[in-house]
């Protein structure tokens, strides 16, 4: 899968939920959305970006959510 595209998609999800007033809930919602709608191979690939230079391209909210998966 194209990591570039996965990061963009994840950040889009983050952009929707980061407008929520409750940040804790927003993180949980991003994680839930990824878990419930992304095929495992997509999740695995984006999870693999954590701890690499690519992580910086993820919104903080998304990074936090990915760590909960």
């Amino acid at each position, binding site marked *: 899968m194209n990591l570039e595209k996965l990061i963009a998609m994840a950040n*889009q999800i983050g952009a*929707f939920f980061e407008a929520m007033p*409750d940040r804790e809930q927003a993180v949980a919602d991003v994680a839930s959305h990824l878990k419930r709608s992304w*095929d*495992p191979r997509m999740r695995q690939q984006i999870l693999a970006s954590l701890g690499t230079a690519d992580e910086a391209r993820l919104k903080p909210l998304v990074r936090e959510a990915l760590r909960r998966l």
Partner: protein
Amino acid sequence: MNAPQELNMAGARVGAGDTVTLEIDGIAVSVPAGTPLLRAGVAAGVMIPKLCDSEGLKPFGSCRLCLVEIEGRKGYPSSCTTPAEAGMKVRTQSPQLAKLRRNVMELYISDHPLDCLTCAANGDCELQDMAGVVGLREVRYGTSDANPGENHFTETAKDESNPYFSYDPAKCIVCNRCVRACEETQGTFALTITGRGFGSRVTAGQGESFMASDCVSCGACVKACPTATLVEKTVIDLGQAERSVATTCAYCGVGCGFRAEVKGTQVVRMVPADEGRANEGHACVKGRFAWGYATHPDRVTKPMIREKISDPWREVSWEEALSHTAKEFRRIQAKHGTNSIGAIVSSRCTNEEDYLVQKLVRTAFGNNNVDTCARVCHSPTGYGLKQTLGESAGTQTFKSVEQADVIVVIGANPSDAHPVFASRLKRRVREGAQLIVIDPRAIDLVSSPHVRAAHHLQLRPGTNVAVLSAMAHVIVSEGLVDEAFVAARCEAKAFADWREFAARPENSPEALEAASGVPAASVRAAARLYATGVNGRKNAAIYYGLGVTEHSQGSTAVIAIANLAMATGNVGREGVGVNPLRGQNNVQGSCDMGSFPHELPGYRHVSDTATRQLFERDWGVQIQSEPGLRIPNMLDAALDGSFMGLYCQGEDPAQSDPNTQHVTAALAAMECVVVQDLFVNETAKYAHVFLPGASFLEKDGTFTNAERRISRVRRVMPPLAGKADWETTLALAKALGYEMHYAHPSQIMDEIARLTPSFAGVSYARLEQMGSIQWPCNDAAPEGTPTMHVDAFVRGKGRFLVTQYVPTDEKVTRRFPLLLTTGRVLSQYNVGAQTRRTANTDFYAADLLEIHPHDAEERGIREGDRVAVESRVGRTLLPATVTERVAPGVVYTTFHFPESGANVITTENSDWATNCPEYKVTAVQVSRSGGA
């Protein structure tokens, strides 16, 4: 005109008053006060002769055949225009009435050609019938042996300009039914009566041919005509049908009921059924006339295989094609893993077929890699409405629009894409409802005969959420929230959060005007109208289409729409609601049937253990608890090497999905692509196996339309290739070692009902009994559910969600300064596989690029010039049409013709929640092609 089996006796019209009792020919009958006596007669079993009256049209009172006598009153009033009153004593037969009627008929026939034996309407002519009913025995006027019917246009040529029907003025009795049908039913006002006396005739437009006029070829005039004046050319060619079969149209999501009139296995004509609840006897040029593709010579009727996509196709037996497919899929799974194959379910196929394909994937394939073409149209509807209201479906019936006082149409063009619903909507606007159109283009509804939108918010493509948030701001900040509704029906905390968000200054119409391009005052006025209604009548309904969903914020916009409806209390009764206009006939159904990679039938997530176990017990397999790949993910995974086999049923991603280069590269990377379709489509160019599909005329099943209405599809002719699509899927499952045992689609529906709570009460027997059923249909709602969320939302309390406007990444730049948006036209349908193979190409033969005069002039582009359209991902050539329908800075095209390559230039940007492609926003440059 009317089929003999459908008695046309003004049956639909009744009064609205209290019930009154009267006598007709000594028979007591009770009807609502105001019901025309003609209709009261039907209720009493008394058939009063008539000619100018017709189903669904207002009383006209011109033919003077339906005269009656009323005790205590003078004269002979026409029964179609005389309302029933309590205590009336009506006589429909008397010597004087008989004489009057014979005189009337004599005058009609004196002006009518007496060629009954060779007339196309022979056996189906109301004039002929009425002549018999009134006992006409002689015609004293205007006839001679040499020239019967001599007064009437004997030298006037027929108008054969329309490809589907003929107009013969010589046979016209000037009953006005066609003119009234065009006005009242269709709402186009293309016809009129010109001339006087014997010179009276039906005229299209300004004395033009039908094709040159504003006529939209809906066929309402043809159906209304009591003679052969307006008659289908297929009837002229083939004669009267032998039998008829009730079925459902396979074009858009309106789901019109039709009567397929058939001779042997040949369709003679498709007549919209008066009992069809989605259409109430109306149709459009596609459903009514564009069915000839079913027997087009391009149909492939033999299975074919090839080793490589560069090889020629080789016709093989069904057995060989299916065993080859099974071997290939198993080989791929052995090499690349269980999750390396999947399927695309068609929203054109039946519920039963869609159910079977997802079952095939979850059983024989052993994974959840199943998706439907709804992915690329209405998947955000499913997500957005589930999150807010609790169910992934529209809230109303189409009929509900008759109770609406304010109608918002956003990102939809019903006159072209859902024309039968548009006619109902326009009728309501003519009755006084106010219309708000939110669309980048000046669609027909903005201004058409006797319809003018109160507000047209001509926003920039990609800014729906900005406009909807601005409307929310007005509603919140001006005290227009229905506080009682919200307090009783919605989650308090979520509403408080939303209210605070909406009230922020950055969400005001003034703040968002720069982004959307819509004047703040217009947004404020539209929001006030939506929230407060018209003269104290507050029913406000929102209708939306792909102009909402096909955006990077498609789901956000759907949520924003639901927020507006909840905030103003416009949910849970007739005349209001949130109404997605589904693009294809069975988008709703394919989604209902579990065709998404994360959901089992009934929108239940695959991670839900109890639901999974329910299906596992029934199907005898283990179902994966993780979601599978969506269509765009499948394509990406193909390029990545982890998705190598695809079963593609009735879908053409190579033409319909965005960024064609990406799609075709992905298809080419797969090791086995199986296409099941009527024709060798664009995707089939990348296929290794072709399995012939069956049209809707060749199979039994059900479709579910945009109002959740489940309607029967009935077989009219045998499948040309020997198998209906459900039978092909069964055979493929068997070849893969998973046998399913169904003798008829009704048994598939029984299984769906057994496993899906919202379908629990649905069966073919029940459909026969009720005609159609709107789900949920179960013990709690045995008659189905016309209006949803009446006392409570499906999820309990309605849930507001904050909808922050996030501009799309698809920005205009100096290199790509224009925004391209896409849509479809009335006469063509999606990728055109069907309509391009009919005479509908006479109406629209090529995709066009609409460009504003200002942008055209800047580029030296004139009407008809061939122009290059270039985006960040591709370039194509289109003929230009210069029009003010689009605003400066916006261009528009359709995607009906593969050669125009509209999707060569659209990008892979997609909705954040569902990956629905952002077809509606592509930054482009347009230039004269110089013949390149």
